[in-house]
């Protein structure tokens, strides 16, 4: 069979997809632990500001877990958003702008979330 020599297309390979799958699974695991812990440690629910602050201070593992949760959820959502946008067959330079935008959103969201965690832990201190 006479065929043209294939030209591999530039662009990312399996890695982003792999991260999406792994973060997805980690989100499920953390959510599961979250519900267990939440149910066990704060059976009344966390429905007031004071309760949330106390909860975070008394159990340091909780804000650490939440921090990781934030990172996983944000990256999963942004890679997912990107794969939906990719399906739109956008032009290469538009896609570059999109990528920059998504990375910015990710960094801002993560920074903001971590700042928020510290703000809660240090409330009134």
């Amino acid at each position: 069979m006479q065929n043209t020599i294939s030209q591999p297309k530039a662009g990312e390979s399996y890695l982003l997809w792999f991260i999406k799958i792994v973060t997805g699974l980690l989100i499920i695991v953390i959510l599961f632990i979250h519900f267990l812990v939440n149910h066990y440690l704060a059976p009344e629910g966390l429905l007031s500001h004071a309760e949330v602050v106390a909860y975070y201070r008394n159990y340091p593992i909780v804000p650490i877990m939440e921090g990781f949760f934030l990172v996983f959820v944000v990256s999963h959502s942004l890679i997912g958003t990107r794969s939906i946008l990719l399906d739109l067959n956008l032009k290469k330079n538009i896609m570059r702008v999109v990528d920059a935008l998504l990375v910015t959103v990710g960094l801002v969201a993560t920074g903001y979330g971590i700042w928020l965690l510290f703000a809660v832990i240090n409330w009134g201190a």
Partner: protein
Amino acid sequence: MENPTKKPNTRGILDWFDPRGRRVGGWGFILNRLTAIGLTVYLYLHLIMLGKLAQGPEAYDSFIAFAKQPLIMFGEMLVIIGGLYHGLNGVRIALNSFGVGVPAQKQLLYGVLGLTLVGSLIFGLRMFATH
């Protein structure tokens, strides 16, 4: 071959959401994409709302009180249903992608839908009971 337009005969993103003529796997994809978009919107709204925690007890507690109206509760329920489906279907697709259970993808999807239903009922009842 003579072809006047060369533009493919597509309906654009309608193809992502139109369930007509599609089968079980296609419906699974449609739901997955809908929940993905819904959950992403929710995630960033949620992050913004949690900012109230940094503004102190008054802001946060009044927000929680505000959030107890039925419409928001209904929205939360949607988030739970969507989250359950997206998570469980994610497990299905992840398994499939590593070569596990592809011939049973239909049955797996039925399982995902069943578990989503059961999970949603449990959460719904709990929410109903606590409020």
